[in-house]
C-alpha cells in the first residue's frame, strides 16, 4: 500500500438495536482511494456499519471521522459520502438523466455544469443513449450502472455500496466485478462495499474486514485473510478449510498439534505468528489445494508431510481442477483439490487413501472461533 493515507476512521463504535448488538466496539481505518470490503454473513452488522458511514444510523457511542473531521452527527444530506443501494433506489418518476442530475441540482450548480457532468458520467458507464429512459425500462445491469453513476457524479470522498452485485444474475455479477474495479480506478474515489460473498470480496477489494456478530474479526488484504487468518472463524469463512483441532505441544524443540488420533507437525513460524503457546487449544487449517492424495502403500518417502488416512468418498471433475472428498478414519471429512493439468492421482472411490500436506502448508490458529491470537493487533 504505497502512499496509503487514512481517509475514514471508525473509532470504537457501538450500535445496539434492542438486545442485538450490530456494532461491538468497531475500530477501522480506510485509506484514500481504497477499495474496501465489509464481509460477513447476514446479521453480522456490516450493513449497519455502512449505514452509519452514510449517516442513516447514529452510533450509540464512538466516532466516525473523515479526513480527521468528526462526521458522527452530520446529517446524511450534508456528508461528502454517497451510497449505492442494494435495490438501486432509482427514482421511478424521473428519467435516467434526471436521476443522475438530482444530486447535482441539490448543490445548486449551473445547468450547463450539471449537463456536462451528467453526460460525462453517462459516457463513463457506457450508457449515453439511455438518458431519456425511465428506470422501469432498463435492464437489471443498466439500472445498476445508473445507480452507480448517480452516486459518483457527486464526486464524493467515499462511495458506499450495499451488496452492489447481489441483484444481478451470476454471469453479469462476475463481469461487473471487473467493471466496478475499472470504474473505481478511473474515478479514484474510495469504495466501501458490503458483501456476504467472500469470493466477491476477495476478487474486488484491496482490503477487507471480516465481521461477525458486530465484531471485526480481521482486517487484511485478500491474501492475508486467506493465507494468514487471524482465527478459526476467518479461516473457515474465507475459502474452504480442512480443520484439525487439538492441543499445541512442544517436544524437544519441535511443535506438534496433538489430536485424539494423531499428532501433526506444525511449523514454528506459524507458532510465532499465531502467538499461541505450549498446551493451548489450537487448530491447524489446510487449504484443499495444499493437500495431496495418494493410494495407501505403506510407509513412503519420509518427506516432511503430515499424513492422515481415510476412505475416498467422491471425485468431482471441475474442468480446471479435481475435487476429492475423503472421510478419515475418525470420521472427519476432508476436501482435497488438485489441478486438472496434473495427472489424476491413481485412486478410486471407496478405496483407502492417504492424504498429506507439507508441514509448512498448515496454518495454525487458535481453536476458539473468536480466537485471540494477534487478531486485535491487526485490526
Amino acid at each position, binding site marked *: 500500500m504505497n502512499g496509503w493515507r487514512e481517509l475514514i476512521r471508525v473509532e470504537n463504535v457501538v450500535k445496539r438495536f434492542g438486545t442485538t448488538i450490530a456494532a461491538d466496539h468497531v475500530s477501522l481505518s480506510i485509506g484514500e482511494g481504497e477499495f474496501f470490503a465489509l464481509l460477513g454473513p447476514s446479521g453480522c452488522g456490516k450493513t449497519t456499519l455502512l449505514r452509519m458511514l452514510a449517516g442513516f444510523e447514529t452510533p450509540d457511542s464512538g466516532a466516525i471521522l473523515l479526513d480527521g473531521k468528526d462526521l458522527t452527527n452530520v446529517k446524511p*444530506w450534508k456528508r461528502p459520502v*454517497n451510497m449505492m443501494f442494494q435495490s438501486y433506489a432509482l427514482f421511478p418518476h424521473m428519467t435516467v438523466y434526471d436521476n443522475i442530475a438530482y444530486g447535482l441540482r441539490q448543490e445548486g450548480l449551473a445547468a450547463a455544469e450539471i449537463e456536462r457532468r451528467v453526460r460525462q458520467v453517462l459516457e463513463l458507464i457506457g450508457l449515453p443513449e439511455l438518458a431519456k429512459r425511465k428506470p422501469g425500462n432498463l435492464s437489471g445491469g443498466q439500472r445498476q450502472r445508473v445507480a452507480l453513476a448517480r452516486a459518483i457524479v457527486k464526486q464524493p470522498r467515499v462511495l458506499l455500496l450495499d451488496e452492489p452485485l447481489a441483484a444481478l444474475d451470476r454471469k453479469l455479477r462476475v463481469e461487473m466485478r471487473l467493471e466496478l474495479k475499472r470504474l473505481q480506478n478511473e474515478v479514484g474515489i474510495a469504495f466501501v462495499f458490503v458483501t456476504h460473498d467472500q469470493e466477491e470480496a476477495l476478487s474486488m477489494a484491496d482490503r477487507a474486514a471480516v465481521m461477525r456478530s458486530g465484531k471485526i474479526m480481521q482486517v487484511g488484504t485478500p491474501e492475508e485473510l486467506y493465507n494468514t487468518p487471524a482465527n478459526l472463524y476467518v479461516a473457515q469463512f474465507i475459502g474452504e478449510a480442512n480443520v484439525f483441532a487439538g492441543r499445541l505441544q512442544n517436544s524437544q524443540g519441535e511443535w506438534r498439534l496433538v489430536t485424539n488420533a494423531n499428532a501433526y507437525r506444525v511449523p514454528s513460524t506459524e507458532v510465532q505468528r499465531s502467538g499461541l503457546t505450549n498446551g493451548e487449544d489450537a487448530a491447524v487449517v489446510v487449504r484443499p489445494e495444499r493437500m495431496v492424495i495418494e493410494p495407501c502403500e505403506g510407509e513412503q518417502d519420509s518427506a516432511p508431510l503430515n499424513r492422515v488416512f481415510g476412505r475416498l468418498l467422491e471425485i468431482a471433475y471441475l474442468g480446471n481442477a479435481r475435487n476429492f472428498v475423503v472421510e478419515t478414519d475418525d470420521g472427519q471429512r476432508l476436501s482435497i483439490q488438485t489441478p486438472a493439468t496434473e495427472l489424476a492421482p491413481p485412486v478410486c472411490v471407496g478405496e483407502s487413501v492417504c492424504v498429506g500436506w507439507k508441514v509448512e502448508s498448515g496454518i495454525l490458529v487458535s481453536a476458539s472461533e473468536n480466537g485471540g491470537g494477534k487478531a486485535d493487533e491487526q485490526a
Partner: protein
Amino acid sequence: MRVRNWLRLHTSLVYLFLYGPILMLIVLSFNRSGLPTAWGGFSLHWYQELWQNKALLNAALNSVLVAGGSTLVSAVFGTLLAMGLERIARNMVLDAFVFLPMIIPDIVLAIALLSFFTFLEMPLSLLTITISHIVFNIAFVAAIVRTRLSYFDNTLEEASLDLGAPPLKTFFKITLPLIFPGIVAGSLLAFTISLDEFVIAFFTAGPARPTLPILIYSMVRFGVTPDVNALATIVLSISALLILISQRLGGTEGFF
C-alpha cells in the same frame, strides 16, 4: 350444465334488479312526456327545464362546495395521517379507530355531530356540513393513501437524503409525486361520497342553503318534477366517471 344455466339466469336477474331502476331513471330523463308510465319520444326537454330551475342548481352548487371543500381538507390531512400511521404509529388500535368513521352507521355519526355542534353553539350552515364530511372523508383518503404508501420503497427517500436533499425537499420531490396518484384516487372517492351524502348533511344543514340530496328529498315530498331525473342522471354520470378514474389511480401502477 343445468346448474350452469340456472346460475346464468339468476345472474341476469340480479343485475336487472340492481341496475334496472337506474336504467329506467336514465331512460325517463329523456322521456318527452315526463310520465313514468308513457313514453312520449326522445327529448332533452327536462335537461332544459333543469337549467331553468334555480333552486336545484343552487343546491347542486352547495353540494359541490361542500364536497370540494371537505375533499381538499381531507386530502391534506388524510395524507399526513396515512404517513403517520404507516411510518410512526404502526398501532392496531389507532388503525382501527381511523377507519371507523367509514363503517359507523351514518345516522350515529349524524346525531353525534349535531350534538357536537349544538354543544359548541355553532350555527348550522354549509360549514357544519363540510366539517362533518371531513370526518369520514379523512378516513377514506387515509385508507387509500396508505395502501399506496405500503408499496412505497423507503430507500427512495434515503437515496434522496443521501444525494443532498433535506427531508422537506425529499418529501416534495420524491414522496409526494410517487404517492400522488393515491391522493387523487382517495380524493375522488371522497368527493363522490360527499357529493350525494344525505343523512349527515340533513342533520347538520342550516335552513338557508340545502345540499342537492336534501333539496331533492324535500321536492319528492311535494311531488317530484321530471327534471329531477335529468339531474340524477348527471350526478350519476359524474360519480361513475370519478370512481372510474379513482380506481385507475388507486392501483399500484398509477401514473407512471
